[in-house]
């Protein structure tokens, strides 16, 4: 009896599959855009784009920037999208090497910087750190939490920044002193910032955290340290397997237009590449972009990421 029921359900499921398979092929063509989870494009903006061009956009969120890139690479024979938005300079090199990349343009950027909890340093009557070198000094022992570069894009960005700042062959000793100064390593940004950072809602035990230059716009009494910041640039571009080349180009133009660029800070916590649009008030006063961010070549990152991470791993596991 039971088995009969299951057979019926399986048959029904299989019929359902074939029906839905037919349904998707008969739909009108649309522009499928693979994006990472933090990309925000509102329904109004998509409606506006449709009014201008007649093209319906379907956003597919495919994980963080790394997951997005690798999914696009792995599915290049059966592409899941016509174009992408959100691959950054730490991964664009991998996409280029894999041969999935068409033309692409920078849309927005952010700076990975240390933040500190002003309140904590005030109550402990201690001066706050001003440089990333300060974090290796004795008075800041056990106060810093950093994301693991092997598990977190934020952590990887800072690792690349230390390579850029100190140079190949010298960055290792910086990390050794950080380790000797009892730095805490968390697997991801959320855990570091929302659980262990004292200046966030989590009220953790660490007053210094690796976050973004924009974070103080959202958390009172926190300050970004403008030293050793990594500039992360996000791109939008065509995919070699994508079908809708013209539509994709129009959409990239749309992403670069003022009407979209001005929404980037509030919705994506990033800075627009366009210099024509003004930053929101809180950003302009509390969370400006870093003035001397470290820029590391994306080809260099892609070529060395593996060996950097292995070295980093060796430092922290011994």
């Amino acid at each position, binding site marked *: *009896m*039971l*088995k009969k029921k*299951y*057979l019926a*359900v*399986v048959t029904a*499921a299989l019929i359902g*599959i074939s029906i839905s398979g037919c349904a998707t092929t008969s739909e009108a063509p649309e522009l499928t855009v693979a994006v990472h*989870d*933090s990309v*925000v494009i*509102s329904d109004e903006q998509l409606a506006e784009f449709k009014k201008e061009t007649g093209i319906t956009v379907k*956003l*597919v*969120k*495919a*994980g963080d920037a*790394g*997951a997005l890139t*690798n*999914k696009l*690479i*792995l*599915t290049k*024979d*059966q592409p*899941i999208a016509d174009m992408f938005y959100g691959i950054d300079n730490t991964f664009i090199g*991998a996409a280029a090497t*894999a041969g999935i990349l068409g033309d692409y343009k920078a849309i927005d950027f952010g700076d990975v910087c240390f933040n500190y909890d002003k309140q904590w340093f005030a109550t402990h009557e201690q001066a706050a750190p001003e440089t990333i070198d300060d974090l290796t000094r004795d008075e800041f022992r056990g106060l810093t939490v950093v994301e*693991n570069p*092997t*598990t977190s894009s934020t952590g990887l960005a800072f690792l690349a920044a230390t390579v850029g700042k100190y140079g190949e062959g010298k960055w290792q000793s910086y990390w050794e002193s950080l380790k000797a100064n009892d730095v805490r*390593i*968390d*697997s*991801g*940004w*959320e*855990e570091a*910032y*929302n*659980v*262990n950072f004292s200046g966030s*809602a989590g009220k953790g035990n660490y007053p210094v955290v690796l976050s973004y230059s924009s974070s103080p716009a959202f958390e009172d009494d926190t300050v970004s340290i403008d030293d050793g910041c990594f500039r992360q640039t996000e791109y939008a571009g065509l995919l070699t397997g994508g079908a809708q080349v013209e539509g994709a180009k129009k959409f990239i133009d749309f992403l670069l237009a003022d009407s979209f660029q001005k929404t980037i800070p509030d*919705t*994506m*916590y990033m800075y627009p590449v366009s210099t024509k649009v003004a930053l929101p008030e809180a950003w302009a006063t509390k969370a400006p972009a870093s003035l001397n961010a470290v820029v590391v070549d994306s080809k260099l990152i892609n070529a060395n*990421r*593996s060996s950097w*991470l*292995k070295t980093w791993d060796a430092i*922290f*596991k011994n």
Partner: protein
Amino acid sequence: MGRNLQKLALWAVPLAFVVVLFYWAIVKLLGLGLQQNWFAVFGDQHFHSVVWFTIGQATLSTLLCLLFGVPGAYVLYRRKFFAQSFIRALIAVPFVLPTIVVAIALQTFASSLPTIIVILIAHLFLNYSIVVRTVGGVWQNFDKEIEYAASIDGANQWHTFWRIMFPALRPAIVSATVLVFLYCVTSFGIILLLGGGKVSSIETEIYFSLTQFLDFKTASAFAIAQTVITVSVFALSKVYGNANAGLEQASESDSSSRIKLREWPVVLTTAFVVIAVLVLPMLQVLMRFSWQGLLDLGGTGSRQLLNISVWQATGNSLRNIVIAGCLAMFFGGLVAWLLSRNRWSWLELPFLLPMGVSSVVLGFGYLITFGAGWLTVPLVQAVLATPLVIRIIHPALLSLSSEYREEAIMAGAGSWQIWRLVEAPLLAQPLRAAAVYASLVSLGEFGAASLLSFGDQATLPVVLYQLISRPGAQNYSMAMAACAILIISVFAISMTSALVQRRRRSF
């Protein structure tokens, strides 16, 4: 002759299922890795340390589960006390929770402890109920008379345990040990989050070598190492203790007696584990519940983090449960039935292998082989759930007395009639248990889903992971509200089924 052909044809159905949906994808991924001098990875020092760490933590976790689980089984299934069904229902909850939630709960709960301790506690949290329920199920059906007779003959309790009970319990203990060890060897979400990157297991190394570097060579070497470990464990379990006992669900029984005075150490240990390791982390999550978080579940999170609302993701998960559950029940049931009808017990192995193979590897294999359609996730989950279904139904079929069958055949009954009139009613309980476990695998599966389910096809654990690992108090409160609902509903279901069982028996 015709019979044999028919049987062979029947075997072809589940074999085709597992070959296409498991081996093809795995071979395709390994094929990408096993090029150049891939075996060089095996000589790597890092490789050795990862493999030994994985085996070491799994061994310790398993020992811990046995150390606390066997006394737990005794207290919860062999003895009778107030609120017992409540506690039994309670300990089943962690097993169902997405590992990502377990990790977050234990992170806040035990962040001051060393990493390895937190991982061990998390594994105890997740797997305690496997040992308790598997061993407890056999224990409570163990004839009280024998125990009683032994004590009259002057055997002390310890003696009774080793000489009489332990041999009877051994298959269940071996079976639980194998399951827990395999879960801990392939543990992904826990080590990913709680390890904080300071420690890495085979599974997380596979994940990183693929997601960070697309390094198929290293990933394949690790995947092979994991499979070798898995198969060895299966082989050992076959040698020691004929571990055919599956995950039997224990039923209520009135034969157990009250707790004796000298048993209090065992009772207190169990109480400690239940409260400190199981209840407190769950309370951590419940205490973070907010009504606003609940209301927000209809939306897509702050800054449109999700493609779909949490409710829609729940819909996806439910749909996957139905598809994966039906497929696993059908193919798993068929294999179990075929196994019980002939002597080729080695034919079980190709179907059990998915249980010990990295689900991350499987996810990547699917991505390369089948792309990323909506059906891929339930199919992977069906493949992963099938071994569990086999291991629950097969022992139950074996335990059916063959006398019934022979009598029925003598009376002229056909296979279908025997099944319908004799076997099905007796199998109702294990079938239900198998369906429940298959659904649980589908609901909680994260390794493969984290790669395959995205966009508007995201499943509940994937959505929870997104909410928990992204900025925003709103996302956090949504995740906590969803987890709290999960905990409460899982507990409610667990509780109700216990009550229903009890009422049935009283009729």
